[in-house]
């Protein structure tokens, strides 16, 4: 079969005919994405019996549409109530929630939707065009390089909580230690488990996510009558379509920002295991570092919302590249897709594009069409979604607590996980009240086991020689990028303060003031 323009046009038209699967899946994905602890992966697992009896194309399109829209859906509660639907949206509230608090929730949702959709569309087109080349990134990322990438992610924690780097580091390293709980990879020695068997497989991420974000937030919101500061409620209550249009305009004005950050998402997504959470924080950090107004980040600054939203949607196509080209799933949802494909007798890997190019490229075309439909169907909803913020916390808080705690029960059906989510909720509450970043703790928990895994692999290959971390050219380049990224904000800060310093006063005048 010849892969030319006609092939892609036919594929596009063919995928469009599956609108009856795509549109309902988009709404389902939005809903499940917006419920913390209830990810696309969970939903696909729950609906696995249906997926398996569907035709392979229909099943794939259903999973892809659900996956893409849930990524966008996760940003909704992150913006409106400061609770990311998934870990991938953990950087979204940094600027999205302050926008909501200042009565610009509808605008923030419009910005998020445009950034997500354009980011997703762009990276999908790029993935289709450059998939075989991009897949090679996975070949170069060995354990040593992955250790550096992990450390890169961790070092961002301190930078993200830049108001107090020490606190950021404490939160991040504490998260890493929590993430190290469980049996060790070689001898299965239990470590830091407090004697609980439920910890032997490590700390489950869903209870950690639910507790640190949802439960702690629910405990905190009861301090106010609604999520909004009272005087801003009136503005939100009277918001019109104009807010959505303003939000869209802001997003389109930052088209270059969307392009750049969705590319970051695409590249990070290709790295197996890195995922949307790392991509969104990397994008946020890069956006702030190279911004002319970094001090505005964290105060409801639109580029601070655009960066993570376009990046985490860029990841969706990225994670599928190693799955389809190498047969290595880039994340949980990709792994579930792989199981379904194998059940249907489709083997992913280098031969997929030779044996069944319609299916291989069809995955990305399904994603492209999904994002196209999302642009048309979701945007009108932003006006009504922002009304969530007007619900009284009296009703909101207990609802969040009950439905998210029960959500933490779903993946493993352990009562233990509900108690664990509650414990994380208390930790998160203390962290929030005392100025520690809950996102830093969560990123630590996510990266903890991955760091250990890659570190051990690297050390084993070098018989315990730590210098192995500096023997790879690519790793050394990454080290340099790490150092530059960490030091750049300080250099820029110094440069700016020097630039902003008023000209020296005449010597005589200075002495007069000194005497006073």
């Amino acid at each position: 079969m010849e892969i030319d323009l006609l092939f892609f046009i036919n594929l596009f038209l063919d995928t469009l005919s599956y609108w009856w699967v795509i549109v309902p899946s988009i709404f389902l994905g939005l809903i499940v994405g917006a419920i913390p602890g209830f990810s696309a992966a969970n939903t696909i697992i729950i609906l696995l019996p249906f997926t398996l009896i569907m035709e392979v194309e229909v099943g794939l399109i259903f999973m892809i549409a659900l996956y893409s829209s849930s990524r966008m859906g996760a940003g909704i509660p992150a913006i409106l109530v400061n609770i990311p639907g998934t870990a991938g949206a953990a950087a979204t509230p940094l600027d999205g929630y302050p926008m909501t608090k200042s009565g610009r929730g509808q605008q923030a949702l419009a910005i998020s939707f445009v950034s997500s959709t354009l980011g997703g569309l762009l990276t999908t087109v790029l993935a289709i065009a450059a998939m075989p080349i991009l897949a090679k990134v996975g070949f170069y990322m060995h354990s040593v390089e992955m250790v550096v990438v992990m450390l890169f992610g961790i070092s961002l924690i301190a930078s993200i909580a830049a108001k107090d780097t020490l606190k950021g580091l404490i939160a991040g390293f504490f998260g890493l230690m929590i993430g190290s709980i469980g049996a060790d990879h070689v001898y299965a020695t239990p470590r830091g488990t407090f004697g609980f068997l439920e910890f032997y497989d490590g700390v489950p991420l869903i209870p950690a996510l639910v507790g640190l974000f949802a439960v702690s937030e629910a405990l905190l919101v009861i301090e106010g009558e609604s999520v909004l500061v009272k005087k801003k409620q009136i503005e939100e209550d009277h918001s019109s379509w104009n807010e959505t249009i303003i939000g869209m305009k802001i997003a389109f004005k930052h088209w270059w920002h969307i392009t750049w950050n969705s590319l970051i998402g695409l590249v990070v997504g290709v790295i197996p295991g890195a995922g949307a959470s790392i991509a969104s924080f990397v994008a946020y950090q890069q956006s702030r570092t190279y911004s002319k107004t970094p001090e505005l980040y964290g105060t409801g600054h639109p580029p601070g919302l655009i960066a993570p939203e376009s990046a985490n949607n860029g990841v969706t196509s990225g994670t599928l590249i190693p799955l389809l080209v190498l047969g290595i799933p880039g994340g949980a949802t990709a792994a579930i897709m792989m199981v379904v494909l194998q059940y249907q007798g489709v083997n992913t890997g280098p031969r997929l594009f030779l044996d069944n190019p319609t299916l291989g490229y069809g995955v990305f075309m399904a994603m492209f069409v999904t994002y196209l439909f999302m642009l048309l169907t979701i945007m009108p909803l932003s006006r009504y979604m922002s009304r969530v913020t007007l619900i009284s916390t009296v009703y909101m808080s207990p609802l969040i607590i009950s439905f998210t705690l029960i959500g933490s029960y779903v993946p493993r059906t352990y009562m233990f996980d509900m108690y664990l989510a509650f414990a994380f909720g208390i930790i998160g509450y203390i962290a929030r009240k005392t100025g520690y970043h809950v996102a830093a703790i969560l990123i630590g928990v996510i990266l903890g086991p991955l760091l250990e895994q890659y570190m051990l692999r690297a050390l084993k290959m070098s018989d315990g020689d730590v210098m192995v971390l500096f023997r790879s050219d690519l790793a050394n380049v990454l080290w340099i990028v790490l150092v530059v990224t960490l030091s750049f904000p300080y250099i820029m800060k110094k440069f700016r303060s020097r630039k902003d310093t008023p000209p020296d006063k005449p010597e005589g005048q200075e002495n007069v003031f000194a005497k006073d």
Partner: protein
Amino acid sequence: MGNEPESGSTDNSANDDVRVSLGGELILPIMALVFTLYYFSTIVDSPWTAQVNAFMVGSLLISVIVLFLLRMAIMVSRGEADLGLGNLLQPAKLLPSRLIYIVLIVLYLLGIEWGGGFTISTFLFLLCAMLLLNKGKDKAFVLGLSAGLALLGYGVFIIAFETRFPAGPFEKLMQGVF
């Protein structure tokens, strides 16, 4: 709300005469320190493969905590800060209801574990929590809302999605119907 530092340190910057209360900020580092030392105690006799990562990360964590404590000690010795809890327990008027709320959450979890199941436990929790936070107002509305939400959860998750939620008397009773 959540992403802004809400420690006492931020409240007092405008007034030089008021000391910053840093006691609340000590809770998390102390928890982290105690946990790290406990973690070390569980791997002392383990093979190096089980130790290397934890000792590396743990040492870094302890170093950062020591730096943080040093900074705090300097501020306290200069009279710039004290060890009060800051706004950790603020607003004070909400403290009793917040404590009762936390007790209700624990009771909710115990209710599910002791056989109450999802629907009944959720209904009772929502009812009690909403009445508590609403100071006993709008009883009929709260009753209807709690029942409606619990039943909605049952309908969507257990009936429609067949999610394995904890089953109790209500779920078992309804099993005969659905």
